[in-house]
């Protein structure tokens, strides 16, 4: 009896489309919320969103993030406000792609993208530095550090929305 049931299941699936794909020739479609490797975002004017607050590192359950901060000046500005990330590193071998860092970020600077094809021959290569993580500036925008008008970017946290 059970044998027949088993063959029935097999027969049913024979009729359907295959679920497996031929990776890497074929690449699977991702859901919007898929969590792949991280990106550090910039504002449209090219300034970095990351303010070096280390909250992502604090939220990370895998202790994968390392941030060291330094101070911005108007002559050499990386991000709005006083503080920027001098060092920003993620150890991709430690990361479990949970996205807690993204949730913790007060400026939406760290976001998990869709890239997932990461392999290393040396475990040290798994440490993604700030240069590797940060997006290129938008079309026409300068990279960082920028020399800016004094006093123009003295707030780190984007404006609060009207709660009403």
């Amino acid at each position, binding site marked *: 009896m059970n044998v027949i049931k088993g063959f029935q299941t097999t027969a049913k699936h024979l009729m359907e489309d295959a679920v497996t794909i031929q990776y890497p020739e074929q690449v699977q479609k991702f859901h919007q919320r898929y969590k792949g490797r991280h990106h550090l975002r910039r504002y449209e004017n090219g300034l970095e969103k990351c*303010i*070096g*607050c*280390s*909250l992502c*590192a*604090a939220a990370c359950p895998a202790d994968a993030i390392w941030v*060291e*901060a*330094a*101070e911005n000046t108007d002559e050499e500005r990386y991000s709005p*406000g*006083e*503080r920027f990330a001098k*060092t920003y590193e993620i150890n991709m071998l430690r990361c479990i792609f949970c996205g807690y860092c993204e949730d913790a970020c*007060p*400026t939406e600077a760290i976001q998990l993208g869709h890239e997932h094809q990461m392999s290393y021959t040396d475990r040290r290569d798994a440490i993604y530095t700030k240069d590797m993580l940060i997006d290129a500036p938008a079309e026409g925008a300068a990279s960082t550090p920028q020399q800016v008008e004094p006093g123009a970017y*003295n*707030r*780190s*946290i984007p*404006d*609060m929305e*009207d*709660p009403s």
Partner: protein
Amino acid sequence: MSDTVTINIDGQNYEVAAGANLVDAAKWHAGNDIPVFCYHPKMDPVGMCRMCLVELGTPGRDRATGELLRNDDGSLQIRYFPKLQTACTTTVSDGMHIKTNTQQVIDARNDVLEFLLSSHPLDCPICDKGGECPLQNLTMRHGPQASRMYFEDKQLLEKHYPLGDLIFLDRERCIQCARCVRFQDEVVGDDVLAFHERGRRLQIITHSDPGFDTYFSGNTTDICPVGALTTADFRFGARPWELNEVPSISPWDAAGENISLSMRLDRDFGGKAMIKRVMPRQNEWVNEIWITDKARFGHHFTRAEDRLQQPQMRTGGTLRNSNWEAAIAAMAATLQGADGDVAAIAGSGMSNEDLWALRQLLEGVGAGRLGAWPPTHDAAPHLEQVGVGAGTNLSELGRGDAILVIACDLEEEVPIWRLRLKQAQDRGAYLVVANARDTRLEDFAVQGARNDKVVEGDAIRYAPGEAVSVMRDLQKAHPQIAERLSRAENLVIVAGAEGLSLAGSEALAAAAANFLIESGHTGSANNGLLSPLPGANGLGLHYLGFTPQTTLNIMQEPPRVLIVAQAELLDDDPAAQQWLSQVETIIYAGLFDDGISQRADFILPLQSFAERDGSFVNGERRVQRFYTAQGPMGQALPAWKLFGGISQNAGIANLKPSAAAVMLELSGSVAAFQGASYRALSRTERQFPDVGGRDLYYGGTAYTNHGGIGLQIPTAADRGADVQRRDMADVAELRAGEGELLIMPITRLYNRQRSFRPSLLVEQRILNPYALIHPDDAAAAGTIDGDLIEIVAGESKVRVRASVSSEIAAGGVALPRHLTDAAVPLSASVGTVSRVTDAVAVR
């Protein structure tokens, strides 16, 4: 009136000390943390922030008869105030009832927080206080869950205002609690901060030049309940939750401030653990919860590039890099081949363990001359006899007590003592300051009113060099002052060495000891002698047999082999070149090369206090231990390991496996250290006020003491020995002859010592080389204020700017140590001053 009263907190009765502050009492006895912002247990309450509101009631009395009113069931009738009261401005009274958990109180706390947050930037992510912020913590516990305000309505103010070089002010974050202003005014007495404008526009300003000019500014960042005041040193250095706290002891002076080193791994330091900041650690007997800016910001030398990192050995006439094994073997051979003609000079930065290992080594090769560096103060033998009694706590001095400070400048030498003695005077103690020149503490030694308190004090100005006879003849020359000192309930005398030779400093301590013995102020807590011995372990040197007298002897009769340990002879002593040239072999172990590598045959890198375990004896004879915190620099070794290694190689004694083991042996061998095992030194106890822990809003960010409160060595008087006066009929005092002046080296807290220079932030506060000279003497030397002058005394010849002022008595010149490149005399000596006519740049 009994000493305790019963109060009722949330329905529970507690027996609390009469006269206690309600916030303190609730916290100490009931563990009830009444939230506060402006109240601080070390300062008078002001009732400014309204965070501490509680329901408060007292037993009702019949108006006519004054009888206590009772309910039908016989219990007392409690009459509550119709409105909430501020707990911080309330003193407990018998039968007092408070409620801290009613809806009314909960609403009030919520409202106060909402009000404070109505114009707060809430940029916690980039705020150095974030994570240890009272405003954050209290908002989470008692505050509104969401904001009803628009960001546009918030005030936008300066976020980066430097209050001087060390402290930044964020004007948006200030909640106007005035803790910083009150600290500077009430606790320190350097009234350099103030409120400017009123109401919502109120701001903190500094009105000194340079800004925030005080040696204690860092403490305001601990007690500021928000991130309005942060240090420039730690700025964005790490987040508080990333830091690892390691208990330690300030390496700078005799106070032995208990500190906590906040450690984190760092790229800038090769991925090793590095000191990110230095914080106070509570020890109510030593430094309470305060530390000096030097302790807080002066840690950079531990990672300085120019620190010695590699053992070096002279072979074939040139100094070459070597390794420990070869160097240790060579030294063992050298020492054994010296026929016992070996001596050692140890600096006051060496720990007790180091000194013990060094002493064992010397004894092992049949040598016994142990010198202490710098040979400037010789009060230690008297401190051992009649030092301040065991259990002394300078914060217990007050009304009825007296303090005499003679021949020292505590503000520059031991700032924490100066702060605590000034506060003792605020509490009513009689403060006498005697010196040949004006000092900061002397500014306080007056009769008068200060911060609504009557203070009593006197200043004695004596001719340069006369400290000993002033002390000896106090009864005759200043009968009223002497009378008040003798009659005081408790008396502490602080005797320094300013303007004195080494022998003079011994004589001054002897004269002070005589006074104490005569007036019966010995052998009990809060009575006795103190002396600002230089360095962190001046008394450790003494207890382990290293004396300044021996150093003088070594200088006069140099040995064949001299071990110099953590002493920068060339920087300190103008004659060092000369007498060192008579030494055959110099073994130098230290942190920095002061030029001795030209002569030395061995250069050995030592670890700083931050890299290793050890213990110091502070000026109050408290043995205190410090712990390994920072990653090592190069191949540096702790000194006990180096000297122990040589001993082992020479077959004298086995190398101990740890500093703890060295201490164990030491405590079994030297009577003074009896019982001072590391375990005993790390004992802690509950201290009032209960700072640290979770409720940072109460005491600030000073750390709870987990590293140990130390162990005090009893004096001879404490042990009941019969301490005797010494006859002092004639004392040899330094006298300047015709055309000469008494050149008095003085100590400045911020100076160009090798260990301080790398702390670049504070370096800007180091004064240019100068000498203080009386107008008459200046006229005689033909100079005016600002002139370049040359001072010659013995081997010392320095060029400095003349600062002409009657702050100093005629006949003496105050010449700061370690401001000039050339060394000033070790201790006071006779010399001449002349105006420099050929213009050569100073320094």
